[in-house]
């Protein structure tokens, strides 16, 4: 069975991702060990909190170039998605740069407060194996203040005052702005797809 590594980016919600794989009958190893990450069949980069803090932690663990050099499928989640980009407007931090784009602050309007916390209908804009068997306009759970505007890497969008990238992909790097581990059956399907050989 393929090996799943979850990069320990210091975010506090990582336990729930491990549990989500347990519910799929799979075990995932939480690690900052470069050798374990390089040899895994699937790598996840989760994260919550501030982008700069997370990048500092990856730098301290000497994982920046390790992640940039990965060839197997890598899934960024929430802040982990933003870390895959070139940078974030949040404290103008430079990120990993494996997917083009800069995370921008979400617009705050009376109807759409920031942070965006809650379930948002999510629409596919492109066919990708990561989104197989997920009905269009499925709801996923979001918790964020920054997001990637819609770009040519966008695979699915959601709305917060205006559309933003909900799921992105470039080469072996894919990412979701929402939390699949907390998005009920639709989220479980996405995690299951990520493990599928077709990816």
């Amino acid at each position: 069975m393929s090996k799943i590594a979850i990069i320990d980016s210091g975010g506090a919600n990582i336990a729930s991702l491990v549990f989500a794989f347990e519910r799929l009958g799979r075990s995932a190893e939480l690690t900052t060990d470069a050798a374990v990450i390089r040899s895994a069949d699937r790598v996840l980069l989760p994260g919550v909190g501030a982008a700069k803090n997370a990048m500092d932690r990856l730098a301290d663990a000497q994982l920046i170039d390790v992640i940039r050099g990965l060839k197997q499928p890598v899934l960024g989640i929430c802040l982990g998605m933003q870390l895959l980009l070139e940078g974030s407007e949040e404290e103008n931090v430079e990120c990993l740069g494996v997917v083009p784009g800069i995370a921008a602050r979400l617009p705050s309007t009376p109807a759409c407060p920031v942070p965006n916390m809650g379930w948002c209908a999510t629409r596919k804009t492109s066919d990708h194996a990561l989104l197989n068997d997920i009905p269009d306009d499925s709801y996923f759970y979001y918790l964020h203040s920054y997001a990637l505007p819609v770009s040519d890497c966008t695979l699915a969008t959601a709305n917060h005052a205006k559309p933003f990238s909900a799921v992105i992909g470039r080469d072996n790097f894919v990412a979701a702005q929402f939390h699949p581990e907390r998005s009920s059956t639709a989220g479980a399907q996405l995690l299951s797809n990520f493990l599928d050989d077709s990816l």
Partner: protein
Amino acid sequence: MVVKGVQFRNHRVVGGILELAERYCAEGADELVFYDITASPDDRSVDRSWVTQVARVLDIPFCVAGGIRSVADAEDVLNKGADKISINSPALAKPALITELAKRFGSQCVVIGIDSREEHGNYFVYQYTGDPGKTIAAQRLTMDWVTEVQQRGAGEIVLNCMNQDGVRKGYDIEQLAAVRAVCNVPLIASGGAGAKDHFLQVFEQANVDGALAASVFHSAEIPIPDLKDYLAKNQVDIRR
């Protein structure tokens, strides 16, 4: 055990934590909040092993409230798998804690619970509401506190309207609408839900981001799928 009272008094046991968590998750609840209502009044913290057990079975977000008095307490709860922490009495005792938590974990997981009661035409914050013998007025106006917690980094506010709690007469629309006007972060209505139309009213008239209820779900008086069908039919954007 899960308990429920009426206007924060006379609590009775309504079921086991995991059993209810799994039931609500299967029925389509969008989020669960676990309140340890005795944690602050007794000056003790929760036994938190249950948080991990809940995190294992739930595939929807959940928030833990009660007994979180420090960054270390919060870290423990979040590391055990909770998605958010909610603080109430400890934030009133030490408002700087809100800023510390937001800086360390991000505003998105810092929820401030506010117990508010209408008195003489104004709204006031109450503290230590888990124990009727220890509940005190916090000497703060609700609107002032709502403004301050946002400035300090709160990512969400749950407003428990005490006059309405557990009596099933409907949410306190007037108070929630007044708070909504000064609240730029997600606002969750709590206290008073007794019928499906109460939920519709609070979304339509107070423009809240979420509606929290306990009694009507614990008793199965309002099945969650029925409620969601009803809200969706009435143009409320809701996951089904």
